[in-house]
């Protein structure tokens, strides 16, 4: 006769992986349970003990240790342990101990093996180490995500771009385009060494042939270089389709060369992407450029939250939201600079307005302060030009503040005369930071090494980046200091119902997901990126470069990608929840507001981060200095 063990069934059915089992199977599991009580501070299993049960914590707290005695994990109600031992010759791999009075449900190995055999979901859950579970969490999510908002532009490329030398005659170009059914062709200059910047010099389209050749009555025997457009607007293959749209809209072009390592791999047309239109963000950006004053911009910026909310609710991934939010932030800057130049008159010297930090990395979310700076022409003379650029900086930074981008508390803004330097001064400054890495210099590096040009001579930003890369790449002492610096912020150990467990056993009520999660991750990714001389700015792109360079142990790069994605996702979901409930969004998250899913996976993600920090320490001998 089978009896109903209601209490046990109600409990088990709440927790993964049991929550996925059909009712009748769940009953079999419940029937098999044996209960055991462990008083606080008693061991449960020791290393190399034989293990024949899976343990589910009914109440209490259990700690799992590494073989060397280090704390590996701390588990509470509803968590499983022992599965790794059951899967590896029935020998305990990680000893465990009850740290509070603990009641365990013990499930016999026969039942465990049977469930693994019969249910993939169960097997996947128990077989996956923390990191693979994280992968499932992230990928499971993007399965139901909206393909339109998460696809990368490289997906649109169906064939190689047509690339022709610049001395080809216009007629030949037209003939080849017709044969290849192409509406545009890329033009290169074979005489330029394409070692590291590519040798693309222009683009020719059907429209050019019509307007500049036929309508103008130009001879078709002339070289194509006479009629091609030389203002090349291009995009990296890792960019999102969404970004391609923004770029085309902003520059009023209909063809975009797509580059990989600065070499063209395809050409994307407006018609290719028209169906991928993601209206709300596009409209928002074009709205920014229609505003005529700071006040109007500030008014428009109040809708930014809705835009953000829609994107999160459309299941955009964090990479995508980060890029869209950064693009919008850049657009605000660009429009403000246009307005500033209208007000102050044209600039007396060329300049480049820089975005630093998360905006440069394309990782901006809804809560952010402004980090920016100015690169000035080497002919800059403070006596003559100082006043203009000071006014310009104040106009932009005040305008940004009015639009919700709060002033940087660290004064890292173009309004600070320290951060209005000429090209040469910036190079000297970066060189000094790299050669003499004191604590303040390292802090600056974290912010300034993520830089992108927003307005003006944006090429200067790329040049500055290239300078930094050349200088930093071979400087082991500097890398070692950066690595040590990246270890300053450690992730927490885990979460309980209503508090965060710190590594030293302290409890906290909430955790700042930026300070303790995405920022340390970005820091450590930056160190690897500098070491391999990656030109990417975005952490995900950097990670791809790092994985390609093969400096991480196998699969650890992918783990980091999943951890970054998961922490970012949780962060932006909680910000979206704040926005929805009319609260001021922040980076803090309280464990009691997390779903069980989030708690479990965040914990795994933090474990990945913690392991990656250990690896960083070892890779760059960050402790030996």
């Amino acid at each position, binding site marked *: 006769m089978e009896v*109903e*063990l209601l209490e046990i069934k109600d409990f088990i059915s709440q927790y993964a992986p049991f929550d996925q089992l059909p009712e009748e199977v769940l009953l079999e599991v419940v029937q*098999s349970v044996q209960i055991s*009580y462990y008083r606080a501070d*008693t061991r449960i299993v020791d290393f190399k003990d034989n293990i024949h049960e899976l343990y589910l914590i009914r109440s209490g707290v259990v700690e799992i240790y590494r073989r060397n005695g280090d704390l590996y994990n701390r588990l509470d109600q509803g968590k499983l342990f022992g599965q790794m031992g059951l899967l590896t010759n029935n020998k305990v791999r990680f000893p465990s101990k009850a740290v509070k009075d603990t*009641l365990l449900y013990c499930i016999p190995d026969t039942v465990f093996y049977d469930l693994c055999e019969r249910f993939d979901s169960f097997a996947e859950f128990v077989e996956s180490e923390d990191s693979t579970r994280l992968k499932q969490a992230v990928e499971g999510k993007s399965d139901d995500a909206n393909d339109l908002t998460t696809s990368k532009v490289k997906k649109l490329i169906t064939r190689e771009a047509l690339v022709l030398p610049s001395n080809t005659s216009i007629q030949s170009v037209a003939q080849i385009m017709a044969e290849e059914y192409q509406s545009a062709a890329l033009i290169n200059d074979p005489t330029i060494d394409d070692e590291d910047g590519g040798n693309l010099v222009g683009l020719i389209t059907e429209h050019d042939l019509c307007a500049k050749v036929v309508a103008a009555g130009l001879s078709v025997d002339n070289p194509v270089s006479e009629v091609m457009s030389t203002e090349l607007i291009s995009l990296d293959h890792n960019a999102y389709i969404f970004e391609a749209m923004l770029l085309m809209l902003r520059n009023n072009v209909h063809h975009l060369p797509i580059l990989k390592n600065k070499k063209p791999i395809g050409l994307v047309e407006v018609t290719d992407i028209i169906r991928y239109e993601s209206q709300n963000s596009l409209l928002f950006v074009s709205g920014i450029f229609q505003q005529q004053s700071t006040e109007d911009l500030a008014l428009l910026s109040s809708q930014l939250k809705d835009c953000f909310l829609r994107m999160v609710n459309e299941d955009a991934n964090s990479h995508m939201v980060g890029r869209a939010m950064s693009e919008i932030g850049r657009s605000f800057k660009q429009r403000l600079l246009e307005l500033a130049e209208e007000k102050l008159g044209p600039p007396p010297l060329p300049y480049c307005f820089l975005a630093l930090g998360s905006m440069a990395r394309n990782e901006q979310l809804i809560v952010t302060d402004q980090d920016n700076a100015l690169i000035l022409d080497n002919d800059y003379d403070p006596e003559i030009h100082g006043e203009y650029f000071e006014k310009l900086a104040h106009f932009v930074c005040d305008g940004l503040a009015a639009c919700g981008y709060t002033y940087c508390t660290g004064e890292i803004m173009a309004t600070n005369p320290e951060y209005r330097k000429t090209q040469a001064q910036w190079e000297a400054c970066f060189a000094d930071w790299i050669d003499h890495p004191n604590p303040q210099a390292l802090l600056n590096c974290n912010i300034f090494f993520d830089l992108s040009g927003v307005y003006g001579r944006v090429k200067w930003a790329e040049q500055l980046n290239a300078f930094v890369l050349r200088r930093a790449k071979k400087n082991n002492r500097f890398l070692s200091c950066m690595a040590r610096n990246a270890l300053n912020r450690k992730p927490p150990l885990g979460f309980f119902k209503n508090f965060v467990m710190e590594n030293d056993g302290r409890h906290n009520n909430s955790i700042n997901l930026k300070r303790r999660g995405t920022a340390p991750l970005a820091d450590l990714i930056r160190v690897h990126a500098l070491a391999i001389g990656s030109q990417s700015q975005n952490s995900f792109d950097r990670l791809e470069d790092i994985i390609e360079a093969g400096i991480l142990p196998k699969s650890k790069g992918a783990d980091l990608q999943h951890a970054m994605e998961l922490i970012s996702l949780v962060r932006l979901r909680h910000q979206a929840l704040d926005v929805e409930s009319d609260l001021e969004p922040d980076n803090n998250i309280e464990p009691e507001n997390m779903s069980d899913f989030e708690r479990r996976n965040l914990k795994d993600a933090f474990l990945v981060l913690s392991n990656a920090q250990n690896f960083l320490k070892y890779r760059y001998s960050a402790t030996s200095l």
Partner: protein
Amino acid sequence: MHHFANKEIHFANKEILNWAAFLQLKAKESKDIRLQNFYNNGTYHDETKLKDIEFVALDFETTGLNPQQNSIISIGLVPFSLNRVFCNQAKKWYVTPQDKLEEDSIVIHGITHSDLKGAPDLIRILEHLLDELAGKVVVVHYRRIERDFLDQNLRALINEGIVFPIIDTMQIEADIQQKQTSGFVNWLFRKKTQSIRLGSSRLRYHLPTYPPHDALTDAIATAELFQAQVSYHFSENTAIKDMWL
């Protein structure tokens, strides 16, 4: 301030009874074949250590508190050892009460007439019940209910009572409270005895809260409580003679 929590507790006020010998005697005296079988299974030697003993936690829901007038309506039991509660061997029965099911008691245990419709008489399951208990040490929370009700109900049914050794987790809790709150120091600090009901006792060992008044849930709760009491106040090597009543 659990000064005594880690010390092994010895109770002074214990009646000394050789249960193994006593059950042999009962086997000879008994007229009922079921009871003879039960007694013939005997019990453990006085000095047997707790870690070597098979226990069975037992709980009754009854129509009232008076064994002379009220009767058993539900029985839950689960075998266990010091290390494991064996849920796969748990049993639960509803039995038709010999008295009228009082409306009052329905409120307490939530068992209604419809639950009992078609339930067997106690006599029909007596053999199964005794098989489950035979040879094991019965553990209950508040022995007046389980011991007295079974005895009285059997007298009414087969004209013969029943007696067997029992461990009472409530008595253990009472004795611990007594020890921890007696003496001058405790008197001085006004240390009061705490509730020794099943739910409250469990809280002191950080055991989870279960909904009360289901015979099987209470039996499991009692088994868990006993495991906790032993790990707190006794040891796996404690002799059974110190525990049973």
